[in-house]
């Protein structure tokens, strides 16, 4: 056998009475051109070979490349009822082949594949809505029961957890809320200033900023920041606990995970959000004042004008919204976390779901509240 060419080669050499030998030559190592297994299949196809014996006399060197090939040969010959003999394999290779063929190949039970088209199919999406709705309602119901038990003093909710989450959702969010609310106040002022200047009515920028911030932007922007910050954190924390079997441990200790994990989170966010919203309102008005100052309105004028437009009803609407928003964000975050799958990918998915559903809820609730108060004339 000439071994001028070192690349891996094989050849089926027929012998008497249905016997054939598979002659392997060259370097069967990584980096060499691939030996085409399908050629062996076509060589054997339709032949009368009953016994295939591997001849490795011309084999120069080998690694997993050879083993992968031999495993394919083994599986193929087994399917075709051909006896596969490996009398003179190198010792290590022989052992590896025996280990690799000790367990039969597992065939996976068929499951429907989900394609991209399916994922975009509106009918499929709509079909998942009722189940989602039921699940959400069940969760809200459980939270309601847990809150009832809290009121009657039977709950396993811990005060220390509540304080811890208050700290996370309150003081720790100060910096980001400061930044966003000052900027939103400035944006509102610029937006109005350009229009009002045309009528020489710049002073009304103060009214615009106060009403816009208190009724709408203060609560909404705080809620959006908190949805991304705290809602996602809740989902990730609870999802990781699900993965680590912590939630199983809590359940088997006879403690309701809703009382122990969800209630303190929801209550903490509901307690902190109105305070953050008042803070955001204040900074939003200051932000508007900075822009007003740039247009020649003195601070005193601005404060006077702002005061005259300040009604308790505006503050009330903003605070009511913040409580509703806090509830929605906390419920979306905790629901996604508790229902998360048990892998790191699932935790990521839960966090994404928490933020997306929270923001959708926020906008729906905001629209509903605005329409309601419009009708009520508040």
């Amino acid at each position: 056998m000439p071994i001028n060419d070192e690349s891996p080669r094989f050849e089926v050499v027929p012998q008497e009475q249905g016997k054939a030998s598979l002659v392997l030559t060259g370097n069967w190592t990584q980096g060499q051109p691939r030996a085409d297994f399908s050629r062996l299949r076509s060589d054997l196809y339709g032949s009368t070979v009953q016994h295939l014996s591997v001849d490795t006399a011309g084999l120069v060197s080998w690694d997993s490349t050879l083993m992968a090939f031999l495993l394919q040969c083994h599986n193929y010959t087994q399917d075709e009822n051909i006896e596969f003999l490996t009398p003179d394999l190198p010792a290590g290779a022989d052992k590896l082949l025996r280990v690799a063929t000790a367990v039969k190949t597992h065939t996976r039970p068929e499951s429907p594949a989900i394609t991209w088209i399916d994922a975009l199919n509106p009918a499929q999406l709509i079909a998942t809505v009722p189940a989602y709705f039921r699940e959400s309602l069940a969760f809200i119901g459980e939270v309601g029961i847990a809150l009832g038990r809290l009121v009657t003093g039977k709950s396993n909710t811990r005060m220390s957890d509540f304080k811890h989450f208050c700290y996370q959702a309150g003081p720790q969010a100060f910096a980001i809320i400061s930044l966003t609310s000052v900027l939103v106040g400035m944006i509102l002022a610029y937006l109005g200033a350009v229009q009002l200047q045309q009528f020489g009515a710049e002073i009304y920028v103060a009214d615009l900023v106060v009403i816009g911030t208190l009724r709408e932007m203060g609560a909404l922007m705080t809620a959006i920041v908190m949805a991304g910050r705290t809602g996602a954190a809740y989902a990730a924390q609870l999802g990781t606990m699900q993965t680590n079997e912590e939630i199983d441990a809590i359940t088997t200790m006879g403690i309701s995970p809703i009382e122990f994990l969800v209630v303190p989170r929801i209550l903490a966010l509901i307690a902190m959000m109105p305070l953050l919203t008042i803070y955001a309102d204040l900074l939003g008005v200051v932000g508007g004042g900075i822009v007003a100052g740039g247009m020649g309105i003195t601070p005193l004028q601005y404060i006077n004008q702002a005061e005259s437009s300040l009604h308790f009803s505006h503050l009330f609407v903003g605070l009511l919204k913040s409580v509703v928003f806090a509830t929605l964000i906390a419920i979306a975050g905790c629901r996604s976390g508790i229902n998360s799958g048990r892998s790191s990918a699932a935790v990521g998915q839960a966090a994404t779901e928490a933020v997306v559903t929270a923001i959708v809820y926020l906008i729906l609730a905001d629209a509903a509240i605005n329409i309601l108060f419009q009708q009520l004339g508040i």
Partner: protein
Amino acid sequence: MATNPPKAENEIHIAIRDLTMAYGSLVIQRDLNFDINHGDIFVIMGGSGCGKSTLLKHMLGLITPTSGDICYNGKSFVNASPQQRDTMRQTWGITYQSGGLFSAMTLAENIALPLQLYTPYSTAEIADILAYKLALVGLAGYQDYYPVEISGGMRKRAALARAIALDPEILFFDEPSAGLDPISSRLLDDLIVELQESLGATVVMVTHELPSIFDIATNSVYLDSDSRTMIGYGNPTYLRDHSDQAVVRQFLARGIAAQAKDAHP
């Protein structure tokens, strides 16, 4: 690589020199000195909290030692540049305590990753190789499963398939049989021995499973948590019967040896 001429017996593969490990001012172990030879199945043992896993993490370069050196084939690992370390690591296969499989990837993708990164194999060849690696650990046909879809024992074996993807020279195991039933644990031990013999690799494992230790270990070191250093080094069966440290004999005989020795001095 399997075709390399087998290294002479007793040739030092990994050398631990005056190694001291500490977290801040808390010393875990000090003055460790031992060699691991080519082809050894070497066990790091000791009671809970003695620093076994910490030692393994030092050997893997996940933690930098406070002082001392770890040499692979005579070359310092502690003083190597990050690039040199990466090159050295390519000859290692590592399985972590809970597997360390990437949960967002299928078993096939998990095993294909090192092959894609470090070998010239084409996509079709990688598919062949990973089918072979999965068959080696008894998971033929499980290519498209995600780690969460298979049992804990299967995850351990899948992690082993990933560890041997590059035909490593050294295989590291952190508690390979923790959480496995006796039969699975025995099968895994057999598999480790088979792979060690056929690949000619050196195996380093952290474990305190006595059956494993006596069945497969050729050499071992015992780390003591009280004196914070190694107090036993040698073949575990020999240490059980002849160690001059009562603690080591006791550990290896599940607490019976010391009394027996005391009774019949």
